[in-house]
């Protein structure tokens, strides 16, 4: 009898786990991936959609085309997991029993948690990115404020990258001299990582992007057009772009598998649930205090898949565990970018911004579909 491996979520992490477990176990496991929409979305592209550098359609592919033929795809919402019964309940009432379960449901954005955030824009969802681009196309002059309304959020460099891409966009339209860009940071520097902040802060200054530190967005007054911080400061805006608060998905919360924000507690090396030995979580879904990003989901997925395959085959647990590896690109505008690499034991390093990192990111964005979901990159 083959083992039942069920994966919730068809993003980067879930798709890689599904393909790798199927590949590594062959007919000894039956792999099922459950996804609410059946559409795989390349989320790093939202940033580019928001400034008109990418077409929305280019970021979507049917999940069925990214999965191996021997992975069963169920396009339906998972409502609840019963860890005692080892069962997932789907919206239709259908049940899936599992021997191994992977939670790869990711995060959801909650702009509604920010009081007054009614006329606020964001680039954290496809609809948000499209709406923001439309607003930018009609923008002629005034102050654009970019802030963070909750931590953790996906892709920590994104607000800084967006500020640079926005600067490029406004310059290309010839209206940069009648606009101001203000970047609000939760800390007293541009970015959590000190080394990267030192690299990007002079470039922000050079481009005339004003950085305000220790401004954790608490509320918005859409009538007065002001945004107020936890620290008690208030700032005016003509167009406000916020990173929305994030939390885990409803299925995690309704199954009580996560913490108070719906993040699943796992061992930071094995990615196994701290309470249930047959449940793993990867990517944004976990409570590990590390970047919520595609690269983390990718690296974690390869580890979780190898552990599950070993258990299915009755082999000892693989020696390779997740070491906290993170790799991010950071666009610095004007056709240049840098990278940020670190893990649990090695502090972050970033090379000087160069054209080759921008092209590497652009190339990755294009080749993603053919390499990442299949687990072809290490």
């Amino acid at each position, binding site marked *: 009898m083959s083992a039942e491996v069920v994966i919730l979520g068809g993003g980067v992490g879930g798709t890689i786990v599904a393909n790798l477990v199927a590949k590594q176990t062959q007919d000894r496991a039956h792999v099922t991936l459950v996804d609410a929409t059946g559409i795989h979305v390349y989320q790093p592209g939202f940033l580019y959609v928001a400034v008109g550098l990418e077409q929305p359609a280019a970021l979507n592919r049917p999940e069925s085309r990214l999965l191996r033929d021997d992975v069963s795809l169920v396009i339906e919402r998972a409502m609840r997991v019963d860890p005692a019964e080892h069962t997932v309940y789907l919206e239709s009432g259908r049940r899936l029993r599992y021997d191994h379960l992977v939670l790869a449901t990711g995060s959801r954005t909650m702009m509604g948690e920010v009081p007054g955030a009614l006329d606020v824009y964001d680039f954290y969802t496809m609809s948000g990115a499209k709406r923001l681009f439309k607003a930018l196309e009609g923008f002629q002059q005034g102050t654009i404020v970019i802030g963070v309304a909750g931590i953790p959020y996906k892709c920590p460099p994104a607000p800084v990258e967006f500020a640079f891409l926005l600067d490029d966009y406004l310059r290309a339209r010839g209206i940069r001299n009648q606009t101001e860009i203000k970047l609000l940071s939760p800390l007293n520097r541009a970015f*959590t990582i000190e080394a990267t902040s030192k690299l990007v802060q002079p470039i922000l200054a050079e481009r005339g992007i004003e950085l305000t*530190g220790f401004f954790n967005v608490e509320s918005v007054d859409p009538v007065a057009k002001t945004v107020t911080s936890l620290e008690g400061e208030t700032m005016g805006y003509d167009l406000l772009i916020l990173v929305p608060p994030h939390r885990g998905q409803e299925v995690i919360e309704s199954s009580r598998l996560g913490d108070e924000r719906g993040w699943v507690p796992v061992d930071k090396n094995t990615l196994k649930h701290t309470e249930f030995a047959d449940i793993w979580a990867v990517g944004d879904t976990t409570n590990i205090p590390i970047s919520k990003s595609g690269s983390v989901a990718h690296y974690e997925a390869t580890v979780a898949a190898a552990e599950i395959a070993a258990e299915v085959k009755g082999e000892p647990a693989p020696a390779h565990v997740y070491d906290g590896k993170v790799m991010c690109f950071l666009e610095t505008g004007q056709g240049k970018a840098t990278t940020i690499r670190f893990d649990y034991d090695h502090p972050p390093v970033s090379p000087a911004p160069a054209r080759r990192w921008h092209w590497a990111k652009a190339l990755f964005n294009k080749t993603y579909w053919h390499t990442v979901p299949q687990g072809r990159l290490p």
Partner: protein
Amino acid sequence: MSITIAVTLDLKGLSCPMPIIKTAKAMKTLAPGELLEAYATDPGSVPDFQAWAKTTGNPLVESTQLGGVFHFILKKKEM
């Protein structure tokens, strides 16, 4: 005179920038002059607490370390 702590935060195991953000949130609930103490394990929290105190005007009245745990006491500024 004994020191009364109004709020104690356990921020151990959290990494940058969570300790400072949880602290900023908790400080909002304090009345002027009240004290908040926080325990953290992220070494980056030491410069972050110093900088946050300086920027926001809420004095950092204590910053000590004992066995890998950092202890901070912040005082809510007078209005």
